[in-house]
C-alpha cells in the first residue's frame, strides 16, 4: 500500500515545480530548470516504485482505485470527485511520461539555457504544469477528472507552443493547436456529460471494498446493459429513444472526438505540424509522452466501453489506418527536419488507433510505449541538430553531419531504424504486432468488420514502405553526403545535457522492443511476451478480477460482443511469419529506395518527378485550406446570422424590457408630486381600495 499512499506526489511534484519556477524562477540558477529536473526525477522514482508495487514485487496490493477528494458532493445525485486508478496500464504510462519528461527537462538545459533564451522561468513553469497535467490525466480514475486534466494539457500546449510569442509564427500555431483540439474536446465534453448522465458515474473501473463493489464503473454498467440486458436502471435510454448498443456507440464516438483532436487524427491533425513552432524539447514532450499520447491512452483506458461497440471499433480502425497512410505521404516531400517528424507522429498514432480499433489492445499499448521512446529520441536528436545548425531546420542546408556529431548521428539512426520498423529495433516489434492483429482480425471477423479491418490493414501496410522511405530520406539528407552549407561544415557543439538524454533513449530505442517479442515467443514457445503478460495479469483473481481492465476481459468482450475473431489461413505460425516478413520487406524496400535516391554524396531533389502530386502533398492535401474555408466561408456567416439574431431579437427584447421599465419608472416617479395633500389623498385611496377589495372578498358587507 505504501507506494500508493505516496502516489499523489507523482502528480503534485511537477505541479510544485511549476509554482517554484513561476514565482521563484527568476531568482534561481538555470531559471527553474533544476526544480523541474528534481521534481520529474522524483516522480520517475515514485513511478518506478508504483510500478514495482503493481507488479507485486513490493507492497501487498497490486492495484489501487480510490476517490481522494470530493469537490462537488451530490445529494441524491452525481458527486464530482478526484480519484486515482493504478493498474498496469496507468503504471506503464506513468513510467513513460515521467521518464520522457525527466529527459526533456535535462535536454532543455542544453537547448534553452545554453542557447541564452529569455523567459526561462515561464518555459520551465510551462513544462512543469504540462507534465503535472498529463500525469493527472494518466492516474485519473474517472472520466470527468480525465477531461479536466485533458483540458489542462491542451492549455499547457498552447502556452508552450506559443513560447516565442514575439515572433509571428508561434502565437498563431498555438492558437491553432488550441482551437483545433478544442473543436474535438467539444464533442468529448458532450460525451462526458452524456456518460455521466447515462450511468451516473464516470469511473473507469469499479471501486471495491473487501471484495464488495461499492461503486460501479461505466464500462461495467454498459457491459451489463449490452450483454445481460440490464437496462432498467438506465433512464437515459428511454430519453434518447435508442437501444443500449446504439446509444453507447454514440457516446463512445463523442468521446472519440476529443481523442481525434488530441491525438491528431484525420481530420483534426492540422494543428500538429504547425505546433513545430514551439521549442523542440516541447515538441518532444508533446509528441512522445504527453498531449498526443493522451488521446490514444484515453481509448485504452476505457477500452471496455469501446470493446462492446463494433461500430466504434470500425471507426477507430478506419480513422487510424487512413491517418497512418495519409500523414505518411505528406511526410515524403517536407524539407524541414521537424516537419517530417511531425507527420510521422500523426502517422504513428494512426497505427495505434488502427490497433485499438482492430482489437489489438496490447499492440496499441506496445506501440505507444516504443513510439514514446523513439519519437522522443528523434525529436531530441533533431533538437541537437538544430542547435548545431544555429536553428536552421532545412534539411537541404545540412548534410554530412554524421562525422561531426557522432553521438547524435548514432542515436538518431537508432531512432530512425525503430521508426522505419527494421528488426530488431523497437518499432519493428510493435508495428509488426499492430499489423498482425489487424490482419488476423480482418480475416477472421464476421460481417462488415472484417473488410473494414482489411482495408485499414492495407493502408497501414502501405505506409510501412512510405514511413521507411521518408525516415531514411531524412537521415540521408541530414547526416550523409557532403555538407551543403558553411554551418553544416562547422556545426555548433552540443553538451552533455544533450548527449546524455540522447544516449539513454538511443539504447532504449534499440532494446525496448524486447519487452514484447510476440513473434519470437510464438515461434519458439518461450514466454518472453512480457508486456502481454503485464497487461493480462494473473489468470485467476488479482487486479483483473477487481478492476475489469485486464486484457483477458477485453478479449472476451471483443470476441463475444463485437464479433472480433482471428482468422489464420496459413496456420498460426505461418500467418505470423508471413505478416512479419511482409512488413519487414516493405520497410527494407523503403530504406533502399531512399538510399538510392538520396544516399549519394550530393543528393538532388526528386520531388518534382511527382508532378501534380507534389503540389498536393506540399499543400498537405489542402486540409488547411478547406478548414480555413469552413471557418471563414461557413462558420463565420452562420455566426454573423446568429449575431444578427442576438442583436436584433434577443437584445431587442432586452432593450424593450428596459425601455418599458424606464418609462414605467418615470410614471412611478410622477406619483411623487411633492404636494403633501396629494400624498394624503393617494394614501387614503390606497387604504380604501384595500379595504373594499378585501371586504368584498371576505364578505364583510
Amino acid at each position, binding site marked *: 500500500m505504501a507506494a500508493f499512499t505516496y502516489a499523489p506526489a507523482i502528480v503534485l511534484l511537477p505541479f510544485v515545480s511549476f509554482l517554484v519556477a513561476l514565482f521563484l524562477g527568476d531568482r534561481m540558477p538555470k531559471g527553474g530548470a533544476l526544480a523541474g529536473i528534481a521534481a520529474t526525477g522524483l516522480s520517475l522514482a515514485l513511478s518506478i516504485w508504483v510500478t514495482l508495487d503493481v507488479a507485486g514485487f513490493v507492497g501487498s496490493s497490486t492495484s489501487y482505485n480510490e476517490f481522494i477528494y470530493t469537490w462537488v458532493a451530490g445529494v441524491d445525485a452525481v458527486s464530482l470527485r478526484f480519484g486515482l486508478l493504478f493498474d498496469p496500464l496507468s503504471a506503464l504510462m506513468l513510467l513513460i511520461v515521467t521518464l520522457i519528461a525527466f529527459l526533456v527537462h535535462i535536454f532543455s538545459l542544453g537547448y534553452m539555457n545554453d542557447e541564452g533564451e529569455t523567459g526561462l522561468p515561464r518555459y520551465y513553469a510551462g513544462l512543469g504544469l504540462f507534465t503535472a497535467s498529463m500525469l493527472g490525466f494518466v492516474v485519473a480514475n474517472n472520466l470527468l477528472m480525465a477531461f479536466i486534466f485533458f483540458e489542462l494539457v491542451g492549455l499547457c500546449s498552447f502556452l508552450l507552443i506559443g513560447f516565442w510569442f514575439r515572433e509571428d509564427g508561434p502565437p498563431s500555431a498555438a492558437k491553432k493547436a488550441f482551437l483545433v483540439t478544442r473543436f474535438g474536446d467539444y464533442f468529448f465534453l458532450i460525451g462526458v456529460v452524456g456518460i455521466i448522465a447515462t450511468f451516473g458515474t464516470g469511473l473507469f473501473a469499479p471501486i471495491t471494498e473487501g471484495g464488495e463493489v461499492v461503486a460501479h464503473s461505466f464500462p461495467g454498467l454498459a457491459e451489463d446493459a449490452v450483454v445481460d440486458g440490464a437496462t432498467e436502471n438506465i433512464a437515459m435510454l428511454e430519453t434518447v429513444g435508442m437501444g443500449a448498443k446504439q446509444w453507447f456507440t454514440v457516446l463512445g464516438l463523442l468521446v472519440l472526438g476529443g481523442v481525434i483532436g488530441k491525438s491528431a487524427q484525420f481530420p483534426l491533425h492540422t494543428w500538429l505540424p504547425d505546433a513545430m513552432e514551439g521549442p523542440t524539447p516541447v515538441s518532444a514532450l508533446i509528441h512522445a509522452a504527453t498531449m498526443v499520447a493522451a488521446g490514444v491512452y484515453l481509448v485504452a483506458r476505457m477500452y471496455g466501453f469501446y470493446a462492446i461497440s463494433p461500430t466504434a471499433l470500425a471507426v477507430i480502425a478506419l480513422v487510424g489506418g487512413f491517418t497512418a497512410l495519409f500523414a505518411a505521404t505528406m511526410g515524403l516531400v517536407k524539407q524541414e527536419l521537424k516537419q517530417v517528424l511531425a507527420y510521422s507522429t500523426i502517422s504513428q498514432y494512426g497505427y495505434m488507433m488502427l490497433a485499438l480499433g482492430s482489437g489489438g489492445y496490447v499492440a496499441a499499448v506496445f506501440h505507444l510505449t516504443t513510439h514514446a521512446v523513439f519519437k522522443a529520441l528523434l525529436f531530441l536528436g533533431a533538437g541537437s541538430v538544430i542547435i548545431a545548425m544555429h536553428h536552421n531546420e532545412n534539411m537541404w542546408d545540412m548534410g554530412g553531419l554524421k562525422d561531426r556529431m557522432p553521438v547524435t548521428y548514432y542515436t538518431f539512426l537508432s531512432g530512425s531504424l525503430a521508426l522505419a520498423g527494421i528488426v530488431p529495433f523497437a518499432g519493428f516489434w510493435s508495428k509488426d504486432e499492430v499489423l498482425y492483429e489487424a490482419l488476423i482480425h480482418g480475416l477472421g471477423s464476421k460481417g462488415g468488420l472484417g473488410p473494414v479491418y482489411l482495408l485499414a490493414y492495407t493502408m497501414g501496410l502501405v505506409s510501412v514502405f512510405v514511413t521507411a522511405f521518408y525516415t531514411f530520406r531524412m537521415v540521408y539528407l541530414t547526416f550523409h553526403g557532403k555538407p551543403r552549407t558553411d554551418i553544416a561544415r562547422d556545426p555548433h557543439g552540443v553538451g552533455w545535457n544533450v548527449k546524455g538524454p540522447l544516449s539513454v533513449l538511443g539504447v532504449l530505442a534499440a532494446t525496448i522492443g524486447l519487452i514484447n517479442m510476440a513473434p519470437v515467443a510464438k515461434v519458439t514457445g518461450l514466454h518472453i511476451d512480457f508486456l502481454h503478460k503485464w497487461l493480462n495479469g494473473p489468470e485467476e483473481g488479482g487486479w483483473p478480477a477487481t478492476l475489469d481492465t485486464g486484457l483477458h476481459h477485453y478479449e472476451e468482450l471483443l470476441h463475444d460482443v463485437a464479433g472480433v475473431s482471428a482468422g489464420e489461413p496459413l496456420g498460426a505460425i505461418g500467418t505470423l511469419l508471413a505478416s512479419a516478413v511482409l512488413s519487414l520487406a516493405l520497410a527494407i524496400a523503403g530504406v533502399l529506395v531512399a538510399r538510392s535516391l538520396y544516399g549519394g554524396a550530393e543528393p538532388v531533389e526528386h520531388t518534382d518527378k511527382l508532378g501534380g502530386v507534389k503540389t498536393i502533398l506540399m499543400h498537405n492535401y489542402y486540409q488547411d485550406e478547406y478548414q480555413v474555408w469552413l471557418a471563414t466561408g461557413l462558420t463565420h456567416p452562420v455566426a454573423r446570422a446568429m449575431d444578427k439574431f442576438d442583436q436584433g431579437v434577443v437584445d431587442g427584447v432586452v432593450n424593450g424590457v428596459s425601455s418599458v421599465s424606464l418609462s414605467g419608472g418615470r410614471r412611478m416617479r410622477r406619483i411623487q408630486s411633492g404636494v*403633501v395633500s396629494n400624498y394624503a389623498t393617494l394614501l387614503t385611496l390606497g387604504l380604501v381600495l384595500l*379595504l373594499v377589495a378585501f*371586504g368584498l372578498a371576505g364578505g364583510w358587507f
Partner: protein
Amino acid sequence: MVDPTWLATAPALAFGAAALVLLLADSVDPDTTNATVLGGIAVAGSLVSLAAAVYLLYGGVGIPTGQGGTGPAVILGGQLVVDQMALFFMTITASVTALVTLASVDYVREHAYQAEFYSLVLLSATGMSLLSAANSLATAFVAFELVSLPSYALVAFLKKNRGSVEAGLKYFLVGAVSSAVFAYGISLVYAATGVLRFDAVAMAIESGTVRTVVDGSVQAQASGASVPMSILGMGIIMIIGGLAFKMAAVPFQFWAPEAYEGAPAPISAFLSSASKAAGFVLAFRAFAVAFPIDALAGSGAVDWFVVFQVLAIATMFIGNFAAATQETVKRMLAYSSIGHAGYVLIGLAALSATGDGMAFSMSAGMAHLMVYGFMNTGAFLFIALAEYWGVGRRFEDYNGLGKQAPVACAAMTVFLFSLAGLPIGGGFFSKFYLFQATLNVSAWSLAAALVINSALSLFYYSRVVKAMWIEEPTGERTIESYPTGLYTAIVAAAVITVLLIPGFGYITDVAFRAVELL
C-alpha cells in the same frame, strides 16, 4: 431567567439612559459643541445596548428552559416580552444606531444643538427597542410613537436647509395620517376581541368569542359574544396600513423619498434601516402571534398574507422602477429602500393558508433585515461622506471618486452590489433565502417579482459603481480631509456585510429559532 426580569429590557434602557445623560450634559453646558464628548456618549450608549442585546441573545433569553435557555422575560403583565425575536431586532437597532452615531460625529460637528440631535436619535432607538419587545397593541402604539416623534424632528434637523424642513413637515403630516389609521385599526381590533394583548387576541380569534384580561390571565367575557369577523378584518387591514408607514411600503411610502432625501444622510440611514426594521418586528410579532393565519383563513375576516402579497409586489415594483429613473444618488437609494421593504414583506407573504412556510419565510425576512441593516446603513453613510465633502448629488458628480477615495468607494461598491444581491456580501444569501421561501410555497408571482426587480436593481446600483470607478472626473474636486468617524463606520459596515457571507448560516439559525419560539 434574568433577575430582576425588567433587566431583560437592558438594550432599550441603555438607549434611554444615554439619552438622559446627553440631556443632562446639555443642561450643564448648553452651548457646548464638543462633538467628541457628545458623540462619544451616544456611541457608548449604543454599544452598551448592542452588548446587552448580544449577551442576552446568546444567553438564551427566550429559549425555553427545557432547551438550555432561560425562558422569555415577561414584563408588566405581558405587555412586554423579551425573547429571541425581540433581541434579534434589538441587535439590529443597536448596530445601526452605533454606526449612525459614530458617523454623525463628523457630520454634525459644525452644527448647534448636537446634544439634542444625539438624544433624539437615542430616544427613537429606545422606541425601536421597546417596539421589538411590545406584546400588546397598546404598548406597540406607544413605542411606535416614541420611534416616530423624534424622527420627525431629526429629519428637519438642518433648520436652514429648506429641503430638510419641508421633508420633516411632510413626514410629520403623512405620519399623523398613518398614526390615525393605525390607532383606528387598533381600536377596531379591540372592539372586535375585547383585548389588546397579542396572545389574548389570538385566543379570542381561535375561540371565536370575545375575551377579557383579568389579573394578567385571559378569560372569556361573561356575555359570550362572538367576534365580529368583518370588524376584525377591517382592523387588521388598518393595522397593516399603520405598519406599512413605518416599513415605507405601498401605499404609505410617499413620505420616504422626500424624508430620506431631505434629512441629514446619517438620519436617512437610521430611518431607512433601523426604523424600517422596527416596523417589521412589530408586523412579524403581531401577525405570527396575535392574528394566527390558520384560525383566520376562511373565517371571513381577512387572509392577511394575501394583503401582504399584494403590498409586497406593489412595493417591489414601485420602489425599484422609480429608483431606476432617479438622477440623484440619495433619492435612488431612498427608492431602493422602498424596494427592499417589498423584499422583506415576502417574509409575511410567502406562506400558505395553514401557516406552512411561515417560519422559513419570516426568518428569511429577518435575515435580510439584518444584512440590510449593515449594507443600507453603509450606503447612506457613504452619501453622508459625499455630502461632507461637498460632492454633488447627481450620479455624474460621483465620477472618478474611486481614484480619490478608494477605500470608501470600495466599501460603497460592496454595499451596492450586496444590495443588488451579488455574492459579494450577505445580501446575496438573504435574497436567495427569500427567493427560496417563495418557491417553498409556490408563490410564483412573488418569485417572479423578486427576480425581475433584483435584475432591475443591478442596473441602477451599477450606475453608481460605474461613475465611481470607470468614468473620468468631470469638474474640479478637492478632498481636504478624511473624517475618521465616518470612515470607521463605513469600513465597519462593509466588513460586516462581507463577513455576513460566512456568518449567514448562523444568522438564519438564530432567526429561524426565534420565529419557531414565538
